[in-house]
């Protein structure tokens, strides 16, 4: 490598030696700055910022060792190679040159060939160091930009809701853990906790598509299984084999008081019962995301009845696997004890964080300790979601109607609600109502499917055993379904300064046995089909069943009065 011109500080009190050195260095095309003692060397260093320093060890006023120490201190992160010039021969003196901050030494008399080679070598090292420094600065800058983009994508969603708590302790600018929460159109909450193998940039990159898919699909009302399938497929395609995402996903259905839980690779999700203080553990029964190809990935979440005040706790392995200075793991037993001895459920979350923190003590955490908890509450505690749409159409379609008929195979394989909701929100005036619309649509469609086509009795859902049985039956009957259908007729027309939307949902079932009863009774009786129908009636302007009870018609006009004027607790 040809030697670029460097500025070289020569500090030597001996005029003869300095002149010889100076001549050698200048002959190589470098610029020379001279100093005759340590103090001068320090002054010259501050003025001229030399690339390399040739320093005599023994000098008056301030010797070379002291000057080197001060120069290295002042240089900070800058690499300023110092070559000691010495006629000292004993090993300990030479070692002292290096220990006091010198990078090399040269013995007198100077061998010009060796001196040139050393200057070139240190010049190269200096340039490489500068490049590294500049790369590092560039990298930090890029990380800042990437972090901004990342934060925009993996934004905090609805983590600020009063019934959610979370804690993320990043080990680097980026965190291998991801915590996401988003409202579902039906008012529920979807939670995701992900722990990527590794830390930093590679882990954060994977988190971006996860967040994008999670938010996009959850807002549109897709089921948990669909979201997980999509995330898995995406991660399987984009991540290298050794990188994958352990995770847990929980859907809180605040209307039907239910939690759907999927755990893949992270420690058991804890379900804490508010009244009894009992803990149910939902162990991981799935492979992490991004491991299996789509055709072999089949998420199997489980449903749990959740009363108000019941809580779920999700965490990455950072909690149980954090260890103290003695090398002991925090472990599940310590975690369980916190739940057993809890006197105030509201404090468990903080107790865990404090306990882990105290346990770790002075030792550095090895993994990201991430914790997320959610409490089951009523919808009025968290309100209906305000889902934002980025679609730019103005006005949108005003006069249209559509018909969708789903046969037995389609009913088992396809959830039409996200698709229908997408079409409805093309109407500008309906966009802000997507939460309402989903609730109405989901309630009426599920009634048609579960009671009409599948003939399930909602009375089953009254206790938690029956609740589980109900969903088991639903699954089974759906799988065995050979006949039956649900028809959705949806139309919209302009009305006044807004519009009028009509749903008509017809099922092939026999209708309700007690269809002669007063509608008010049907819709206000929570035993009949949960609290859903009562809510639907409040959200709609009109709600009628036909005499047979297998067709329901709901009409909804917009603009709507503000949500606060609809008294949920009526």
């Amino acid at each position: 490598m040809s030697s670029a011109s460097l500025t070289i500080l020569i500090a030597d009190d001996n005029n003869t030696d300095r002149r010889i050195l100076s001549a050698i260095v200048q002959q190589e095309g470098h610029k020379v700055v001279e100093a005759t003692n340590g103090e001068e060397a320090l002054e010259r260093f501050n003025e001229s910022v030399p690339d390399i320093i040739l320093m005599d060890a023994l000098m008056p006023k301030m010797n070379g060792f002291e000057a080197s120490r001060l120069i290295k201190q002042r240089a900070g992160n800058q690499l300023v190679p110092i070559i000691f010039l010495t006629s000292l021969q004993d090993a300990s003196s030479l070692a002292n040159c290096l220990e006091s901050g010198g990078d090399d030494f040269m013995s007198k008399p100077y061998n010009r060939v060796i001196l040139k080679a050393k200057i070139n070598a240190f010049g190269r090292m200096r340039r490489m160091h500068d490049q590294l420094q500049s790369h590092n600065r560039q990298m930090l800058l890029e990380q800042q930009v990437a972090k901004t983009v990342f934060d925009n994508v993996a934004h905090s969603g609805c983590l600020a809701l009063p019934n959610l708590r979370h804690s993320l302790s990043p080990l680097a600018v980026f965190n291998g853990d991801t915590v996401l929460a988003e409202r579902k159109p039906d008012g529920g909450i979807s939670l995701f906790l992900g722990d990527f193998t590794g830390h930093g940039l590679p882990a954060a990159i994977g988190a971006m598509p996860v967040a994008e898919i999670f938010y996009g699909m959850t807002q549109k009302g897709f089921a948990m299984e669909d979201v997980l399938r999509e995330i898995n497929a995406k991660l399987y395609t984009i991540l290298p084999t050794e990188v994958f995402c352990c995770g847990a996903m929980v859907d809180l259905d605040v209307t039907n008081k239910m939690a759907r839980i999927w755990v893949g690779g992270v420690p058991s999700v804890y379900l804490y019962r508010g009244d009894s203080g009992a803990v149910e553990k939902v162990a991981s029964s799935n492979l992490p995301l991004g491991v299996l190809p789509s055709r072999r990935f089949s998420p199997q979440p489980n449903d749990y009845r959740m009363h108000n005040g019941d809580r779920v706790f999700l965490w990455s392995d950072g909690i149980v696997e954090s260890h103290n200075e003695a090398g002991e793991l925090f472990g599940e037993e310590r975690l369980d004890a916190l739940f057993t001895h809890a006197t105030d459920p509201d404090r468990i979350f903080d107790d865990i964080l404090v306990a882990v923190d105290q346990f770790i003590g002075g030792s550095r955490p090895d993994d990201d300790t991430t914790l997320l908890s959610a409490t089951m509450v009523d919808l009025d505690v968290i309100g209906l979601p305000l889902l934002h749409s980025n679609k730019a159409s103005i006005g949108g379609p005003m006069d249209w109607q559509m018909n969708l008929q789903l046969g037995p195979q389609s009913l088992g394989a396809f959830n039409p609600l996200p698709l229908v909701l997408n079409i409805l929100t093309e109407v500008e005036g309906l966009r802000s109502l997507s939460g309402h619309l989903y609730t109405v649509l989901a309630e009426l469609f599920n009634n048609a499917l579960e009671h009409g086509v599948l003939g399930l009795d909602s009375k089953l859902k009254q206790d938690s055993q029956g609740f589980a049985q109900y969903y088991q039956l639903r699954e089974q009957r759906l799988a065995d379904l050979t006949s039956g259908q649900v028809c959705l007729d949806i139309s919209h027309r302009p009305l006044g300064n807004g519009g009028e939307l009509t749903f008509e949902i017809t099922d092939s079932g026999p209708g309700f046995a007690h269809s002669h009863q007063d509608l008010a009774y049907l819709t206000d009786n929570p035993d009949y089909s949960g609290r859903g129908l009562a809510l639907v009636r409040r959200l709609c302007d009109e709600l009628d069943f036909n005499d047979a009870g297998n067709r329901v018609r709901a009409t909804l006009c917009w603009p709507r009065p503000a949500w606060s004027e609809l008294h949920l607790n009526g």
Partner: protein
Amino acid sequence: MTADQPDQHLDDAALTDLRDLLEDDFSDLIETFLGDARERYTELVALNQHPEPDAQTVRGTAHSFKGSCLNVGVTRLAQLCRRLEEMANADQLDSVDSLLADIGTELTEVERLLRSQYL
């Protein structure tokens, strides 16, 4: 190596190298060396006249003197300086009078040789 032969006053190969390196500045360098050497010698004599010579200062001056002698290829003088440095280091300064005298004689001889052969 010629530098290790105490009988040799000058290392001619080293001096020729220096002359090639410094070109027009060479004579200036030799003058500087001789001036400094004379100064150091005077300093050493003065230090030695002190009832209790400062061994550290003697050592430092001898060390530095030795260094520049080596650099300009003044071999035997360098050797004598090293001996003085070693004695100072061992705190044996009570018997250096003859060594100092040798240094003075050698310095005069070196100056004569340099002036006749290189200037």
